[in-house]
């Protein structure tokens, strides 16, 4: 079985890469494109560690075949902010000391970033609902909520 040519956009850059038919987008991002921010936790869409933006929407990249991303826009945590120009969420996560082991954090940040794009001033309930698909086994949810709440104020402020 021949490999397929995957053409898509990843973090604003055009990407062309050969992938196996059975490769997931997560595998292609990590193994072929070198973006190891998205993580494989469960591999079945339950934990959210593999969350990336697909045409701006958060998805579980472990449940998408790489070739299903053909022609689409993918954004990973590497494309959310840069050193020196962090996304307000990343900045808030650093200042609140949110990461413990850190494994879930890229997924949580991508889910939270998608939430704030759609809903710049979410309620506490909406934030909880927005990251309901992300499991943190260190159980560091309280600081996450505080950091996302603070960043929401900052991003909403930036908009207006």
């Amino acid at each position, binding site marked *: 079985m021949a490999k397929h040519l995957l053409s898509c956009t990843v973090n604003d850059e055009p990407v062309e890469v050969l992938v196996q*038919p059975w490769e997931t987008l997560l595998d292609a991002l990590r193994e072929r494109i070198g973006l190891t921010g998205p993580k494989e936790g469960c*591999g079945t869409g339950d934990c959210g560690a593999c969350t990336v933006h697909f045409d701006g929407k958060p*998805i*579980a990249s472990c*449940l998408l*075949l790489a070739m*299903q991303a053909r022609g689409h826009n993918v954004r990973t945590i590497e494309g959310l902010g840069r050193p020196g120009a962090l996304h307000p969420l990343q900045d808030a996560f650093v200042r609140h000391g949110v990461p413990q082991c850190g494994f879930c954090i890229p997924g949580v940040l991508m889910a939270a970033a998608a939430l704030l794009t759609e809903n710049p001033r979410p309620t506490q309930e909406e934030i909880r609902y927005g990251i309901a698909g992300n499991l943190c086994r260190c159980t560091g949810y309280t600081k996450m909520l505080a950091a996302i709440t603070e960043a929401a104020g900052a991003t909403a402020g930036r908009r207006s």
Partner: protein
Amino acid sequence: MRRFELVLPESVEDCVKALAQGGAEAKLLAGGTDLLPQMKNGLLKPARVIDLSGIARLRAIEPGNGAGIRIGSAVTARMLELDRAVRAHYLSLAESGALVGSVQVRNLATLGGNLCNAAPSADMAPPLLALDAEAVITGPKGERRVPIAAFFTGVRRTVLAPEELLVELAVPNPGPRSGGNYLRHTPRRELDIAVVGVASQLSLANGVCTKARIALAAVAPVPLRATAAEQALEGQAVTPDRIARAADLAVDAARPIGDQRGSADFRRHLVRVLTRRTLTTALARASA
């Protein structure tokens, strides 16, 4: 994952051709939220996977014949949840979309996948039953339409032949004096599977119910309508007493099993409670 050949059709016609060349060994891939986990754990080992994501028609929500709507089979749960037309006239369907998985899953999981997997607990089935939807199916012999009530034939079984494809759902507009609601019970608020799900739809004219639909999930091998309960409401003014009576009749329609998610008795109790609640909300929405 076991190796497979990947087919990437860009039209319904190309997909039907691909299915005709060995549909029995092939699996159709839409959102992948059910299929991929089953392929990863070795439960399913298809030789070919046909990806539906390149077929624009399957992802469309469009006005249908008359005042109805056509919803493509690869429309995601998230699209159902947010679509203005769906929210305006088919709110119970939008509510079912909003209940599936996490947002990361809802952006992938599709209406067609939810129906074709044919789990007894499928959340999108009861609203479609209550809305009198039809499944539009295409195969080598052309197109056919099947009322959604006849689409399911057993646990994880449907009327679809191996070489057929569910293209879209045709849903008639219930009209301005109609209201619907879908509720389910789950032990956890998020990322859980319905212990029982109930959708109700009520249409009114001059204070009298002209049409009632009550559909139940996870209380039988297939999603089903509680027709005796519906008939008890039609032609009547919908009062709390009649809603309570309909809820009792809906319990009689249920044939639940007991399993790890709930006993048969608990499921019957849930049918009564959720039927009462969805009818009450449907009435308020129809009257608004």
